């Protein structure tokens, strides 16, 4: 059974390539994409994916705000995928309930592993 993922990032091109790379094998299914904070929260609550891959810098509401709103909701685990340096943002994300923090540009395998681990660990 594949892991159902909501992909949240305001850069459409990034969503396109991530969808392409993450769905190369059947282990991951992208059930929806969102480009801003409010729609991410709404889609997460409506679709209840296994994992939300969440960018931090987004319009409407940033990733930390989304994390705060999803913190007490058992709908899904969150893997933060951000361009910000790990030492700058990781601690805050984990404190707000993120399962893992992955820097953008990291290998796609690393992101896949984090997604699968988050889905099985939640």
């Amino acid at each position, binding site marked *: 059974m594949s892991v159902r993922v909501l992909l949240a990032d305001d850069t459409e*091109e*990034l969503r396109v*390539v991530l969808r392409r*790379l993450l769905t190369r094998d059947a282990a991951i299914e992208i059930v929806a994409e969102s480009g801003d904070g409010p729609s991410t929260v709404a889609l997460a609550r409506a679709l209840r994916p296994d994992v939300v891959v969440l960018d931090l810098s987004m319009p409407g509401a940033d990733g930390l705000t989304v994390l705060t709103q999803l913190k007490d909701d058992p709908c899904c*685990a969150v893997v933060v995928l951000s*361009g*910000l340096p790990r030492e700058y943002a990781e601690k805050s994300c984990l404190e707000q309930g993120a399962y*893992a923090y992955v820097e953008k540009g990291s*290998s796609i395998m690393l992101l896949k592993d984090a997604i699968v681990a988050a889905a099985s660990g939640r």
Partner: protein
Amino acid sequence: MREAGTVAAVRQSASTGTLSVEAWRRRHAIVVLSALAVLAGAGGVGMLNQITSTQLGANVLAAALFLILAGSDRVKPELKALLATAGALVASTAFVVSAEGARPAHLVFLFVSVLVTVYRDLVAYALVSLYVLLLYALVLVAGEIAVLPQMGDADSARRWALLVVGTSFAVSATTMLSWWLDASGHRDREALQVALAEAALRERQAVQIHDQVVQGLAVAKYALESDDVAMAAGAIDTTLASARVLIGGLLAFEGGVVPDTLLRDGPAVLSTDAGSPSTTHGADGADSPEQPSPPREGA
């Protein structure tokens, strides 16, 4: 840069250290209303004492004129304080005249000299000080003068004049000094706010630039991994353009390039052999030192 205007406004406020427009208006209204009250008191006391001198009438008219002008929107703001101060002084004189020079009436000059310090304006304060000094210099020189018949004999009048002048200067100077010390503290706080606002702005700019560049490079890298060379090239072009816009805006805000702006600490490094932590990620992740953060407890 949206924050630039905010920082500039705070910086301008800190550099002037003046009252805000609202605070100044409130204080100006207090001075004008107080002067009008003194003027009304002068009229009332004059009627009680049945004073009909032309000097009193002239003082009342002059004070009223000054105060009307001080309240007019057509007058320049920098003149309003002086007009209100002049109105208050002339009204005080009218009050003393209408009271026939009774000693307690002289204390209105003490009141006015302290009152005008609320402007934090040295010119207005100097005007009051000079006026009080000249007025009582006449008493000191001439002893009993015609408009102050109730001040008693010459020696008694001199002692009273010295007391009024000395007390006025001592109290008003202390008040003025306290305003200035308070303004100094205010300027220090605003300077600190400017520093904090600029630090916050720089952090936001750094984060924005970093995020924009990393975002573009990440798209390019992932596009290459998925064999989409066109998308990778497009992402790099877009990232370069965005970086130029961001840095261009930042340099324009900071006033452009000056000597040493472009001085590097060392040569630009793009090679992964240079040991830079940000360039050690392997393309396929096989030899990458990067790891996702550990799962949170209980997750």
